[in-house]
């Protein structure tokens, strides 16, 4: 694959509580030959809190980063966190579609943003720029027994005018990527149902209730793991799973993995490099279940052979019984 370079805006979460998202995303991009460069001295995007203050102010906090990225000349910035992505896209679209808004935002900045950056999620870059065939071609390992509920969270594909990617009601990009690396994906009805992460600290009870529904529905869908693409969702479903259990009297023990960690596992990357030990709900069983695709093929061939043998034995038994029957009839 041709080396294409992207600016890579990690956002604050990926430096702290979501460090394993950053670790695994970088490893997977490396394996796929996608070059990424971190913008120098990037700042926080402002996220939800800035939006409760003022729209121009919120856009300015995000646009400081767009100005820095614009100078890098990569054209596209790829963003793992949907909250950062949404804020960067809102600023970019608002400033390119409305001149007076752009002027107002630029008045708050040291250096103006001219509108030359396209923000895309890391999921979008993988699906559209790398492609499913290339993603599948790097697979060396299988995770038999794993059934994943793909959880997209609320704003990765919504509202459609801002996200401009995948379906706003039934997204499938993560499903497709996971299937391309040979993982079984459950039909999950709560792909987009908000887990409440933004209110985790001030409204714990409310958030625990919402999280409970998301986790329950994954079990009902027959999944034994949830895949996410959002650091806030991950933190909420994983770190707060114990809180949910004590508040709601449940006993969830459901590993919450970043989709990039799952892809990385199928690429044979080491669990350490993928930050598997950073997860609160242990994913050790998933890691231990990993086998090479040769082993899987052997396992499947053995199973087939055993099945054929059993069938042949059954046939022989039936034939013998028939023979006995005719013999008895003759006498």
């Amino acid at each position, binding site marked *: 694959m041709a080396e294409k370079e992207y600016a890579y805006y990690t956002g604050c979460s990926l430096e702290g509580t979501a460090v394993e998202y950053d670790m695994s995303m970088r490893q997977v991009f490396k394996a796929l030959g996608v070059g990424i460069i971190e913008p120098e001295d990037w*700042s926080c995007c*402002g996220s939800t809190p800035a939006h409760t*203050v003022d729209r121009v102010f919120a856009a300015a906090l995000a646009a400081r980063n767009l100005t820095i990225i614009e100078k890098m000349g990569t054209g596209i910035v790829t963003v793992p966190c949907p909250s950062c992505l949404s804020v960067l896209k809102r600023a970019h679209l608002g400033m390119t579609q409305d001149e007076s808004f752009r002027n107002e935002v630029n008045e*708050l900045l040291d250096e103006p943003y001219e509108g030359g950056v396209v923000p895309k999620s890391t999921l979008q870059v993988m699906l559209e720029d790398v492609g499913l065939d290339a993603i599948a071609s790097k697979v060396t390992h299988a995770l038999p027994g794993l059934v994943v509920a793909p959880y997209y969270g609320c704003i990765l594909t*919504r509202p459609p005018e801002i996200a401009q990617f995948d379906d706003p009601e039934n997204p499938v990009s993560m499903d497709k990527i996971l299937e391309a690396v040979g993982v079984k994906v459950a039909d999950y009805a709560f792909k987009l149902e908000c887990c409440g992460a*933004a209110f985790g600290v001030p409204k714990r009870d409310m958030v625990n209730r919402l999280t409970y529904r998301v986790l329950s529905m994954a079990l009902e869908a027959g999944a034994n793991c949830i895949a996410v693409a959002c650091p806030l969702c991950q933190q909420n479903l994983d770190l707060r799973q114990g809180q949910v259990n004590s508040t709601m009297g449940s006993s969830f023990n459901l590993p919450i993995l970043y989709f990039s960690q799952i892809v990385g596992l199928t690429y044979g990357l080491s669990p350490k490099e993928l930050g598997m030990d950073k997860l609160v709900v242990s994913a050790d069983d998933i890691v231990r279940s990993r086998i090479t695709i040769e082993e899987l093929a052997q396992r499947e061939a053995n199973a087939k052979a055993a099945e054929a043998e059993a069938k042949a034995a059954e046939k022989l038994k039936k034939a013998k019984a028939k023979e006995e029957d005719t013999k008895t009839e003759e006498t």
Partner: protein
Amino acid sequence: MDTLNLTKSLNLSFIEQVSKESGQNPSLCYQCGNCTAGCPYTHFFDYPVSQIMRLLQTGQRDTILSSKAIWLCATCETCTTRCPCEIDVAMIMDTLRIIARRENKVSEKDVKLFYDSFLNSMKEHGRLFEVGTLLSYNLRSGNFFADADLGPKVLEKGKIHFLPRKIKGRDKVAKIFTRFQEKAKKHG
């Protein structure tokens, strides 16, 4: 349920203000209730989002600005995505929150306090300092042990930084804050 005297509390300029600031036309809403049907937070709201829309159409400024609903909306965008009249409902909720904040009418003080702790951390360091934000929120809200149970878990995973990562351009980020505050003062 509250009884409102719509004639007495009608505020026409409020409808105009919200329409202008949000860029949306609230009169397009025909009360189908699709937004409320999909809202994950509706059980926690004092007024479901479709009722907020109706209150807005009838200019019920004070009831809306003192509602809990506008602060408990997480901007999950379900309402916006499903509105058959293509109203950006989440944008209207966002605008109402902004106006409530500006007028110091905040019904959910803890939510605002958390947002403020986040923004203060950002202004000071240029990036979010997670531990500092949580501690500042706990001190100022009086919920001294909010999420204290999670501390050992993240600590064990080596995910916590006890010192902020200050970026070089943090003064530039802080300048965005001060420029905005000056501009807001000038325009009242």
